[in-house]
């Protein structure tokens, strides 16, 4: 039997289907009917609106095991029409130290720390003790937690095996508590009696600057409090020194803009507590948490700016508690020291708060700082052995000098 007759037979249905795909799409022709009807002021409805069945839906309150989260819009209880510019623990400023100085009306009189901070030399025994503290916190601690992913920019396709070990937060806590304990044991007993170290204190300082409502809401990861306030560093006049200029950029750039917020004024220690005066604030820097909004690497100046803003927030919230809400020029300057660290680098700064008038007042606040100091070059296991290479004595000397500063 010849199949070709059957196979070549045309299937009219398929032809129609194929043709329908093209011709089934039609553009509506403008007949002018709508225009004519509108001229006669007759209402025009869409056919779908008439044909659509109107159904009334009833709202039912479903009781769940927990309340639904409140939507973050105008109906939120904390919604304000005026936006708040806030700075929190995981923010950095775009221009870093320069921007922080403009925001807080601060100048730097000189590079480095003031002469009052005198560094003490340690004996070999003390240095060995410090080395063991570093090794204990960086290598010997028993914590085994999943660490952040490692990426090599040269080989982006390569997936490293996930490593487990000591998390940065724990490492910092251990090294700071260890080193502070050593510093306390080297200091005189009368001095140590006057100091206390508290962890995770919250500070918040809201203020107005050029019609912007700004709030710094920051944590002191470890704060040394003392029974006497730190004496002012200098009485040098700051009237003639001009602030730096970052035009065309406004100093409020990269602060979080939020309409849902609470204004809080917090200095966590009440004034009737004996050891309520801030002395030194320790700041943890974790590069996984502290990030630029554009997700690029954080620069040194941004780290410096973070130190300055934390020290400012601590001293300003303290000054408000001490001298009242409306104080501008402080009767006595407030001095706070700051130490920022990621466990490896250390940044030391001293902030002297002279005034809370931040809108271009003549008197300015003063900031002293060191460059970034590395505590060591490498501290890890090498061929199965724990090693500490390139230990830098300067860091603990600074810590000792800060603790003993009165």
């Amino acid at each position: 039997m010849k199949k070709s007759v059957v196979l070549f037979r045309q299937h009219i249905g398929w032809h129609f289907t194929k043709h329908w795909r093209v011709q089934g799409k039609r553009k509506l022709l403008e007949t002018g009917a709508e225009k004519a009807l509108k001229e006669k002021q007759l209402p025009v409805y869409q056919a779908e609106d008439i044909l659509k069945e109107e159904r009334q839906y009833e709202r039912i309150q479903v009781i769940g095991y927990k309340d639904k989260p409140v939507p973050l819009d105008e109906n939120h209880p904390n919604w304000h029409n005026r936006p708040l510019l806030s700075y929190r623990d995981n923010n950095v400023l775009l221009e870093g130290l320069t921007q922080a100085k403009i925001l807080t009306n601060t100048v730097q009189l000189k590079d480095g720390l003031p002469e009052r901070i005198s560094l003490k030399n340690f004996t070999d025994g003390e240095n060995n003790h410090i080395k063991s503290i570093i090794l204990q916190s960086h290598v010997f601690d028993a914590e085994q937690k999943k660490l952040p992913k490692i990426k090599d920019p040269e080989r982006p396709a390569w997936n490293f095996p996930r490593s487990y070990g000591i998390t940065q937060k724990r490492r910092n806590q251990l090294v700071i508590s260890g080193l502070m304990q050593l510093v306390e044991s080297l200091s005189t007993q009368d001095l140590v009696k006057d100091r206390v170290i508290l962890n995770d204190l919250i500070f918040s300082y809201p203020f107005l600057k050029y019609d912007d409502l700004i709030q710094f809401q920051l944590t002191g990861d470890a704060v040394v409090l003392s029974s006497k306030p730190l004496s002012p560093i200098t009485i040098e006049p700051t009237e003639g020194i001009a602030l730096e200029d970052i035009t065309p950029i406004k100093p409020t750039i990269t602060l979080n803009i939020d309409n849902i917020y609470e204004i809080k004024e917090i200095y966590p220690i009440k004034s009737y507590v004996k050891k309520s005066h801030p002395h030194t604030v320790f700041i943890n820097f974790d590069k996984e948490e502290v990030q630029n909004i554009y997700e690029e690497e954080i620069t040194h100046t941004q780290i410096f700016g973070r130190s300055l803003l934390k020290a400012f927030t601590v001293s300003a919230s303290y000054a408000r508690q001490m001298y009242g809400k409306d104080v501008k020029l402080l009767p006595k300057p407030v001095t706070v020291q700051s130490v920022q660290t990621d466990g490896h680098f250390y940044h030391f700064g001293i902030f002297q708060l002279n005034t809370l008038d931040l809108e271009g007042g003549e008197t300015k606040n003063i900031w002293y700082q060191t460059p970034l100091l590395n505590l060591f070059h490498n501290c890890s296991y090498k061929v199965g052995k724990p090693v500490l290479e390139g230990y830098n004595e300067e860091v603990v000397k600074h810590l000792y000098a800060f603790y003993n500063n009165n």
Partner: protein
Amino acid sequence: MNCLTKEFAKLTFRCGQYPFSKILGGVRYKIRYVEKPQIGNGKSFRRIVHYPTDYTVKPLNVTNLGGRDPKSGRLVVKGIGGGIKHKYHWIDWKRVGPSEGPPQVERVIKIIKDGCRTAFVALVAYEDKLKYILATENMKAGDLIRTSCYIPRIPVRPNEGDAYPLGALPVGTQVHCVEMYPGMGGNLIHAAGTYATIVRKAPDNHVVITMPSKREFSLPATCMCTVGRLSNVEHSSTPIGSAQKNRELGNRPRSGLWQRKKGIHGRKLRKPPPLRTIKALEKDNTETIVLTCDRPFVKTLYTQFRY
């Protein structure tokens, strides 16, 4: 057996409106016609970017498509797939400046290498805003760039990275990121190391530019453009290096066959096409309706038994 199957096929269960007879027919050989999109209409089948409502410099998450149409899920473009997932830097294509008075000044903060495009991206700050633009050849952090929409009588003397309307620039200037229609946002010339040159003024307030392809376009003089040549000039002369590197870039293996007629191995040397004058097209707002037809057009024996 055949008869029995046909008899079964005739049987229908009715439950409300829905007849279940269709299920008994051969599902395996049923064809569902799926409409695939036309390629080459400015739509990318490499990735979708999840844009938020407001502009942000936070790198955005993407979904890689591997050459598939996100609506139908069918393969549309061959040769795309895999590779390293990059976050997308949302570029602010509209450089809007003051229409009179001094230009707006912005500062370059950082030049960033973006995985989703060939040219580098510059992070720019002004007042309390941040944005990304395409970086020019010699742009570096700290540079000040200007933007203005004003067209003076005498052409301005521009610097690299400045944005002006085409009509404000002198003849011979190299430009990129050119708007096709005023206010649209720069959409011509984005690739690394490319530039267009302003050739002459044309009647009806138009300016003629030569594109990197040597074609001449006549554009309205109010179209904004950025001055200079785009960054990463070495990109076109840098070999990919290895097949694996090409896979990392998200391209699938090629056949390696010499395809004379396709035009991918070089174009024929012909006279360039004539000057193309770009004019705003009238928008066709008429609605297209798609008519559907559920039943088959012809009643054949086969369909008789099935439906």
